[in-house]
């Protein structure tokens, strides 16, 4: 596969490590009332979509960016690639 890195252009997927669903960016608040359940769902449950899937890739053998890649799990077609830090900031994850 080829991932079109937002800064570096098309790169072979072998340069990357895969983590999983981009929901892993949504780490729950540790002090919320049902924190244990929230962390359980965050850590273990997946939509596992057959179709459009937002997922995290790490450019390990490259510029070390974490990327949010939107990819169709039925066809492997990639429709968007963003820097995870941009996404995280946009989603309001501050510190």
């Amino acid at each position, binding site marked *: 596969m080829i991932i079109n890195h937002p800064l*570096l252009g098309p790169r072979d997927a072998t340069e990357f490590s895969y983590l999983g669903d981009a929901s892993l960016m949504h780490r729950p608040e540790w002090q919320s009332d049902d924190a244990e359940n929230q962390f359980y769902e965050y850590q273990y449950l997946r939509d596992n979509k057959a179709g459009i899937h937002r997922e995290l890739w790490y450019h390990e053998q490259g510029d*070390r960016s974490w990327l949010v890649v939107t990819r169709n799990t039925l066809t492997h077609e990639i429709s968007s690639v963003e*820097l995870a830090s941009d996404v995280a900031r946009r989603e309001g994850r501050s510190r």
Partner: protein
Amino acid sequence: MFDYKLSPKSPLDGFVLEADGARLREINGFALISIAAPHQGEGALKSVLKNTLGIDLPKPGFSSRSETTPDITLMSVGHDQWFVRFLETEKSSVEWVADAVGNFAAITDQSDSWTQIELSGISARMSLECVLPVDTDPSVFPEGAVSRTVLEHLGVIVTRQPNAADGGGYCFLLLSPRSSAKSFLHALTGSPPFHF
């Protein structure tokens, strides 16, 4: 006055190899200092580099050369991260860079982290075809281009340098982690025209 003295060793003991149309040689004496921009500090770093070293922050995937001191290059190696490469002097390389960028970057010495190998000659591109997953066609990998990737299971940073003045073909600088320098060299010399 000191009883004991430490002497430096280069990763590949100054290796040189020539074959039909290509030359491989270890490069020594160049400092590699990582500078990383602090959070939201890229703009400030950019100005200070321009002011002190006369060098532009290169775009991702490229390197730039100092306008005032051509021996200094700045290679983009990660997001918000660059390597300053220059000939080592008596003075500490880290301090030299620290003097230039002050508090505008996190500075980390990488001079001993990498083996530096130059591959040049008219067959250089052909030689790389059998190991390097980078399109080195000049239309997409011009002078100054930088790519960080994997070569025979090893991390590598490759940058295209100016062609040899005598029309001797392309010239690439390849950086790979020092501890595996021998494996890296073995990978390069296993390609044509070397075929070790």
